[in-house]
């Protein structure tokens, strides 16, 4: 072996592989940031503010309790709305799966609901209800409920019939049947449902807060719009994006543990 190659990192080393992975994760964001920064030198700050200004505002929001509490309020609204919709979705999904009558009544209703725009639900909520938190919870549930319900129904209907028969052949109790068969079988689709609905919910909550709230990221965005403060608007948006990314990451970590039984193919 020559001196030149002696200290070189092998092409298939884990360090190099990690660096390559990191590069491809960062590359698109670096590209967007570079384009934005270049644009900021040619346009006024209210159109394209410098990324340094945006970064300073992000830090300011994250370190000032009166502002960061708005981010937390929005995050909690998203989680509460999703949890509520998920719980109701599970109940409705099980009803649709087990009862033909429930299927005939609920499926068309939920399909109809799915066609109603989020903004219409915002208007309905403002007309129907007084409390801000209840309005937002209502909007969140109504906009994400159909998707959760249909995903629960799909997961239940997609359970492997052979495995179901095997499990039933041992005559388990209802609790055992649920914990050993139903829960693990539907969990992958449930997690996917959460991931998809998390994105939808973060968009809907901002609209709800923008129109009908006196706090939260949506309300703050309205303030920035009135002040024509693009750096502030971006900084508040990024706070919400960070929250969504953080929650998606937590779900992914859970998936890694929960689905470690899955075979991995070398060829994808």
């Amino acid at each position, binding site marked *: 072996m020559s001196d030149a190659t002696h200290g070189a990192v092998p092409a298939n080393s884990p360090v190099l592989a990690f660096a390559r992975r990191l590069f491809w994760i960062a590359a698109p964001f670096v590209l967007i940031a570079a384009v934005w920064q270049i644009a900021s030198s040619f346009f006024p700050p209210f159109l394209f503010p410098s990324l340094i200004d945006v970064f300073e505002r992000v830090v300011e929001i994250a370190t000032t309790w009166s502002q960061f509490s708005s981010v937390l309020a929005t995050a909690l609204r998203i989680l509460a709305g999703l949890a509520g919709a998920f719980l109701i979705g599970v109940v409705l999904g099980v009803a649709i799966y087990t009862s033909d009558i429930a299927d005939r009544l609920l499926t068309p209703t939920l399909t109809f609901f799915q066609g109603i725009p989020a903004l219409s639900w915002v208007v309905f909520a403002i007309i129907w209800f007084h409390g801000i938190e209840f309005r937002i919870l209502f909007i969140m549930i109504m906009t994400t409920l159909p998707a959760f319900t249909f995903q629960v129904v799909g997961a239940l209907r997609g359970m492997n019939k052979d495995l179901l028969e095997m499990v*039933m052949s*041992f*005559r388990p109790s209802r609790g055992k049947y649920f914990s*050993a*068969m139903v829960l693990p079988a539907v969990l992958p689709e449930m997690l996917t449902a959460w991931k998809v609905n998390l994105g939808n919910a973060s968009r809907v909550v901002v609209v709800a807060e923008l129109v009908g709230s006196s706090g939260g990221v949506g309300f703050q965005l309205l303030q920035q719009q009135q002040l024509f403060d693009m750096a502030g608007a971006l900084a508040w948006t990024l706070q919400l994006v960070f929250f969504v990314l953080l929650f998606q990451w937590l779900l992914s970590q859970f998936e890694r543990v929960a689905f470690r*039984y*899955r075979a991995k193919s070398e060829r994808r």
Partner: protein
Amino acid sequence: MQREIDKMEKTADTAAGRNGNVSVVAGTEGPEISFRGVTKRFGDLVAVDNLDLDIAKGQLVALLGKTGCGKSTMFNMISGLSAPTDGEVRVMGRNPFTEFDWYRGKMAIVFQSDRLLPWRTAVKNVEFGLESLGISRAERRERAMYWLEKLGLKGHENDYPHALSGGMRQRVSISRAFATDAELLLCDEPFSALDEMTSKRLRTEFARLVKENRKTAVFITHSIDEAFDIGDRIVVLKRPAEIAHDLKIEGEIGAAERERYRRMIHESLAA
């Protein structure tokens, strides 16, 4: 040839005390499994037509027939997974469909495919049947490990199904059935997807375990060799689940003799 058939069926008739179309085994309190005038229809398709059959306690019966002859339909009715359209199926004196839960711990099934829960390790799959019986964690683990070891899977207890070969997975599935110590074992072509050598080895092991543990077993197969390797009684079924032959096998059968029986069964199934 006809004399051979007559001789074998006579052996079966003598042992089982045949009464018309119904085989009743003498000297027991009643058949473990009985079909009385059982018909099963799927729409216009008749899968089982007016079938009478008795299986005595302690017998290892191979139900042999071509694909689509109604073997699996019979299997599903015995296991309580489906009900007859007409007639009556009784297992241990009860109705397996309407009294489904009564059979908890009394009946175990080995299916055609291994049907292991992919999210459970080998040992946890074997423990599943025991969990349904409410057996303590320590005893579950002990029994599961015993059966895994007995079936040559020591060292693989913590492997997930995807990491095991087809033969190993099917052995886990057999361990799961034996671990419950059920009186009745139902097997639906459990070795048909395996290569010939593995299949032969597993069915020899299986027959030995059934006899060692004094189980009643119903083994569905479309392979004549498998039926002879396993069964001490072979019920040959024509379509739709009509009994063509009911043979009792006593002791080892020589190659020449087996060949004669094979030809006989072929002829009746082809007819």
